[in-house]
């Protein structure tokens, strides 16, 4: 059944006086901010990860304290195991540096008295008399 022209006119008249209920615009603003936060959390990068992690941590409820304690224990143990051994990194004893340039010792020249060319042969050193 099609409405008549008079009925349509009375309905439009009623719509003209229709108003949103009380608090409608406050909810709209809150919903807008929530959606914006959710969109930012979905973004890539460290800040996004951090936000997601914090969001996940917040959603854990009471069990988050158990997770936190476990994470802290793992961190302390890792630091303990990875810390370098103090004995290994002990600094070497200081080596005294002699800055004095000493002249090289003169090599003693041996004089063979015979053509004995064996490596073990020994001659005389120092001033030679002829």
């Amino acid at each position, binding site marked *: 059944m099609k409405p008549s022209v008079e009925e349509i006119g009375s309905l439009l008249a009623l719509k003209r006086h229709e108003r949103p209920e009380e608090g409608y615009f406050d909810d709209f603003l809150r919903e807008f901010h929530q959606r914006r936060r959710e969109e930012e959390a979905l973004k890539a990068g460290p800040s996004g990860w951090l936000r997601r992690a914090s969001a996940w941590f917040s959603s854990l409820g009471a069990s988050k304290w158990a997770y936190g304690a476990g994470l802290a224990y793992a961190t302390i143990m890792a630091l303990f195991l990875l810390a370098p051994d103090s004995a290994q990194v002990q600094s070497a004893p200081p080596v005294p540096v002699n800055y004095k340039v000493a002249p090289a010792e*003169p*090599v*003693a*020249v*041996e*004089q*063979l*008295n*015979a*053509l*004995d*060319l*064996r*490596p073990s*042969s020994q*001659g005389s*050193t*120092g*001033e*030679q*008399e*002829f």
Partner: protein
Amino acid sequence: MSSSYWRCLLALVVAWSISAFAAHAQSAWDAVFPGPGGESGSVAFPVGDGRFFVAVALSEMQADAGRLRSSGRVLPTEVFVDPVSRLVVFHVSGPAERALPLAATGSDLVGSELRVKGGGTGKAGGWIKQINGKMLPLSLLKIEYSAAVPRAGTPLMDSTGAVVAVAHQTTSAKTGYALPVDVVKRVLADVQGAGKVSRGWIGLNLRPDAAVPQVTSVKDGSPSASAGVKSGDVLLEVGDRQLSDYADAVNAFYYLRPGVSTPVRLKRGTQEISLSLTPVEKR
């Protein structure tokens, strides 16, 4: 009998005669010396009047107990040893052999080609004055051979066939040291002249570590003092040998013979002085 038979027989006789003559000409003289590890050999060759044979007794060998052999047969000999060069001279009283001629000197051999008696060639690479920081009492020639190093005592000859050096110690598969012929002539002169090998003494002192052959002191009453050599003099020439360092002086002093006057040139300050030294026998 056909003539061809006689011709064949004649050819055989000629061939035998040639081979016998060649064997005699190549007569294998050698010397053996006892040592801690057994006997060691050296080639020997006749020099001088043909009754003197020269050989080399290397380190550790008892040079004065050496025996001269001819084709394996030991010959009765008198033995003369130069303890410095380890050159041994055997004197035989039998018939003289055909001696090898000795060159005038072996001091100008560096770079020249040498013929090794028995085959092969060699090239004189240079003079060796010290080995492993030890000064030699006389300079040796270093020889690079075309084939294996010949035995000690093997004569090395120039293009005319005169002996210019004698093979000494082996240093590698194809290199070895050699005594210049001057050593043979010096020892032979002593043996033929005085019947013994002696060393000359002139009574001056040198330091081996000095840059130049500078006299550090002169013994009172020595031939050097008598000739006028003074402490501080730098020796330039002894005999016909030019000196540039201590080793050259030691080498030159080896050839000094007692009683034989030797010209000496030296530098005193800026002045060059020539004088004559007559060594006496070293006690």
